[in-house]
């Protein structure tokens, strides 16, 4: 209900400026109705500020200020011992950033994060879009059931899910290797082998997250013109051609949104390696976020701040690049 009412009303033209809204423009005119409007505008401004105050104060203290302090911190040698006097630290310029680039573990973490995003994001989008298209077919019964089932992993705690997957992926009697054994495949030690550990985490992330993209694609697919599909089918276009030339262009904004949000999420992946592999074996699954957290654990706050900002900068660049890339056509 929220969706429909909010979006349908948002589609209406904005309400015309009323007396109270436009009143500040009429400042200076000293006529009586003008002054009454002035009173009302003042009352409105007071109410607006009053209603905003609790949020804005908490927001300032707990979000806006820490964002700024984090940037400051990344240019200092702040350590855990400075926690009581966070501003009595030495300014070290870009040293933390330079040190991060020279740290082989951080470079490995950045590489792992890159692989996680480059492989995981397309797989998540493909899985989500396939599920959405399958569910969007005409008179499909049980649609609600399937949609709910596919969405279930999204709502569950990543820590719990990681524990369960570690159990599923056990080399000796895990369910995955048991099933592979039925068809004669000798499954590897998924999480204990350098070559398969990151891959396992990617598959788990796709399993956990494709439901989100599916739901968003389902909403986006409502914008696809069925008549166009039917006309193209009559003209002999096959399913792939119709998908490529009708569906994809129609859902371009949705696709962009899913691409951007999934990338932002995956660039910060943390819980999966933290709970499942501890970053191992041999740092093959350590992520930039997890290594940042480790630096915090070691007490190197300045360094951790720099690494967090590096992730933030990469997120900004990737988001911008995706917007440009998708907008060009």
């Amino acid at each position, binding site marked *: 209900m*929220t969706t429909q*009412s*909010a979006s349908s009303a*948002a589609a209406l033209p904005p*309400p015309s400026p009323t007396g109270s*809204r436009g009143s500040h423009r009429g400042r200076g005119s000293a006529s009586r109705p003008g002054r009454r409007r002035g009173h009302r*505008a003042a*009352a*409105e*401004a007071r*109410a*607006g500020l009053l*209603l*905003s105050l*609790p949020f804005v104060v*908490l927001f300032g203290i*707990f979000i806006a*200020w820490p*964002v700024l302090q*984090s940037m400051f911190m990344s240019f200092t040698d702040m350590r855990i011992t400075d926690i*009581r006097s*966070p501003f009595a630290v030495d300014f070290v310029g870009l040293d933390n950033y330079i040190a991060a680039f020279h740290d082989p573990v951080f470079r490995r973490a950045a590489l792992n994060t890159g692989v996680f995003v480059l492989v995981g994001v397309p797989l998540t989008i493909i899985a989500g879009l396939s599920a959405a298209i*399958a*569910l969007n*077919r005409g*008179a499909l019964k049980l649609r609600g059931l399937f*949609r709910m*089932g596919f*969405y*279930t992993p999204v709502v*569950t*705690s*990543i*820590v*719990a899910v990681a*524990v*369960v*997957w570690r*159990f*599923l992926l056990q080399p000796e*009697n895990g*369910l995955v290797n048991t099933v592979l*054994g039925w068809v004669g495949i000798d499954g590897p030690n998924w999480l204990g082998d350098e070559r398969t550990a990151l891959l396992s985490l990617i598959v788990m992330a796709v*399993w956990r997250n494709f439901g989100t993209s599916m739901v968003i694609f389902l*909403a986006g697919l409502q914008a696809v013109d069925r008549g166009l599909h039917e006309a193209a089918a009559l003209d002999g276009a096959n399913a792939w051609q119709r998908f490529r030339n009708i569906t994809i262009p129609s859902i371009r904004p*949705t696709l962009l949104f899913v691409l951007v949000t999934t990338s*932002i999420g995956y660039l*910060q992946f*943390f819980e999966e390696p*933290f709970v499942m592999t501890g970053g191992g074996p041999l740092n093959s699954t350590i992520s930039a*976020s997890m290594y*940042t*957290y480790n630096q*915090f654990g070691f007490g190197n*706050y300045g360094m*951790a*701040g720099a690494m*967090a900002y590096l992730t*933030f900068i990469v*997120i900004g660049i990737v988001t911008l690049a995706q917007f440009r890339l998708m907008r060009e056509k």
Partner: protein
Amino acid sequence: MIERRSPVLTYVILTAFLLLVITPFVWMILGSVKTQGELLRVPPTWLPEEPTWDNFRRLFDRPFGHYFRNSTVVAIAVTLGNLIFSSMFGYALAHLTFPFKRVLFVLVLVCLMIPGLVTFIPQYVLVVNMGLANTIPALILPFLVQPFSVFLMRQFFLGLPRELLEAGRIDGVGEVAIFFRIYLPLAGPAFATLGILTFLGSWNNFLWPLVVSSSESTYTLPVALALISTGQNQTDYGLLLAGATLVVLPILLVFLFFQRYFIQGIATSGIK
């Protein structure tokens, strides 16, 4: 012509997919009532041969009841805070004119994109200096205000007619009272969506409680589960699966009852 082709095949594929997706949960719940010996057996068993509550008993020998209460208290407080503060601010942004409105809105939007990783160390320093380290309020305060919540409430209030505001003014209702007496009672659907999403986010939240909680008195369920899963109980799968079930089951039940609000919430945030 497009629709008629092989609905059976679609069903078969979807069903196979569905089984694949929910198997981990089935496996988790079945495993949580198996004995340790059965859990280690090769090949694994499907149904528990001698179902036992022993894993849950061992779980509650630890203060898991307490962790459960911590998670619940924190999630409820965070949810209430978001409903109250975000609806007030969201309404003001949607319908009122006041100084700094644009600046504030842009600031909130910008912070929507900043990863939690950037803020958690200064937040930690702040909480320590406020004397709140390792307390329940420390788990709640930073999450009372979330940019996403304001965004959602603003969108919702924009969808309600402005005529209500005008009518209230004509009837002489005060500006603040217009919000509390006229608009707020209409916010039920938005509250349902936002409430569920916030509760879910708080219940599953991991990084911040992990940073702030340093003793059993303030652990939440995910933190406690993560700590036993990386400690000496690493391979005690009976205990771990029972713990995972305890974390997941309440949310699964909430989800089953309110799934349309969940899904609307995601779709709303996605379309806008």
